[in-house]
């Protein structure tokens, strides 16, 4: 049997609209989830480094719960269980259409699916990020801390000026990996009926049976998005001294 792919079947008309909408939705929910994960990880690291045993215990419990359970189950929990427990007035409000809550490309973000997906992805990713940052902190030699302490640095200034810059540099690749995971794992939100990229290309399959073309385009879009996000994080991320452009390094060392 000879089979010819029919790209026009997915790159025109209604299927194209779905793909564009799905791609933008994946992009936006990844960004929202990343912002949430970043805010959470700042909070979690602050709690973990505090003197309070209770706070450190809470972080340990958080990490344990969110790292050791499947993300799909977490998303189903947030969407079907936790969301339903919100006050009815909130749910009505979120369920309404709001002209101001629309991202470019006509993607509404104040919807139960978007909110639950971003929330679930943010919490899940934060649990991994906190351990990556911790590993980065552990990789900073003890002498750096001793030098700063002997100069009279407070714990907070030591952390912000000495330890975190080095920790983030050391752990930047694994940290980037976690943000890329967040983007890719957003495909699981198809399980709560969230119309992101995977949901939309699946829809093409039942619409005109162009499964190969649909998933091929979807895969390429994920690949492109991952490479662009990863590249941006590398370009704008912290650098080691030898990676920084410098005018006068080679004068006789």
């Amino acid at each position: 049997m000879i089979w010819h792919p029919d790209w026009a079947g997915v790159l025109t008309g209604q299927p194209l609209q779905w793909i564009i909408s799905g791609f933008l939705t994946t992009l936006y929910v990844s960004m929202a989830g990343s912002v949430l994960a970043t805010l959470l990880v700042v909070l979690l690291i602050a709690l973990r480094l505090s003197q309070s045993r209770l706070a450190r215990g809470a972080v340990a419990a958080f990490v344990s719960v969110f790292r050791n359970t499947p993300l799909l189950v977490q998303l189903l929990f947030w969407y079907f269980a936790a969301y339903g427990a919100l006050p009815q007035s909130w749910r009505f409000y979120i369920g309404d259409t709001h002209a101001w809550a629309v991202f470019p490309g006509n993607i509404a973000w104040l919807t139960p699916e978007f909110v639950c997906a971003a929330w679930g992805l943010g919490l899940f990713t934060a649990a991994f990020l906190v351990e990556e940052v911790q590993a980065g902190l552990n990789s900073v030699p003890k002498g750096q801390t001793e030098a700063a302490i002997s100069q009279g640095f407070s714990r907070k200034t030591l952390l912000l000026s000495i330890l975190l810059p080095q920790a983030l540099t050391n752990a930047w690749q694994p940290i980037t990996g976690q943000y890329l995971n967040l983007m890719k794992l957003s495909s699981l939100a198809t399980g709560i009926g969230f119309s992101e990229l995977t949901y939309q290309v699946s829809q093409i399959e039942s619409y005109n049976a162009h499964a190969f073309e649909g998933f091929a385009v979807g895969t390429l879009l994920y690949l492109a998005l991952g490479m662009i996000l990863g590249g941006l994080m590398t370009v704008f991320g912290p650098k080691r001294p030898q990676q920084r452009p410098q005018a006068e390094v080679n004068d006789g060392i």
Partner: protein
Amino acid sequence: MQQDSLSTAATSAVFSHSNAAKTTAVEFRQVSKSFGHHPVIRNVSLSVASGDVVAVCGPSGSGKSTLIRLINQLETVTDGEILIHNKPTRGLNGPALRELRTHIGFVFQQFNLYAHLTAQDNVSLALIKVHGWKKSDARGKALALLTRVGLQDKAQHYPEQLSGGQQQRVAIARALVTDPDIILFDEPTSALDPEMIGEVLLVMQELAKSGITMIVVTHEMSFAREIADRVIFMDGGEILEQAEPEDFFLRPQHPRAQRFLQKVLFPLHPETGAGQ
């Protein structure tokens, strides 16, 4: 911009005596330190006058490094009291302890330069972050100190782009940036290649003439002999001998000091009598 609540480096009631003639800078009163059940410093009493340059030597594991790390409380004493300019320091914590530390420079064996910062930023950082200086002023002072240690042309280099000797000179500039009146050195030349020891010792010699109080843990006998006012010999957590350098090197009293000197000065003849 993150800043600590400390006041400027120069003003402090605790240190108002520091310019008086030959007051006591550092005093140990029956100080002991144990790690768990393992005693490292045993009942040490010691007095160092302002402006004195003291070399502390002894075999490895004798407690030399711990002795000076107790002064700026990188380690805390188990028993006894350490007075800095006649003020007890044992109960200090929080801002008062940080204030004390800004008046005591510390130079490490492994340099411990901030790896993510240039030489100039290494020196200026504490002024900006701990003392609230303006960035431009702090960088100006840092450059002046780097010039003093002969490294103005390396100001924009990162630690890993510098040789060991250069890194240690940056570390000395960093320790001096808050104008401490006491500076502690923990084996400052032990991690250096032999040809780089001289450049660091020359900076330390210049510093010794400036009137700052220096306590130097060292294996570098030329420093102890030529620059120090006094040599302290430690073994087993105790001070076994204190003497002027000439007396210590020519007429060591304690048998363990004699044995130590024999090994250090004549490593190929560890068993014959003291060097004649």
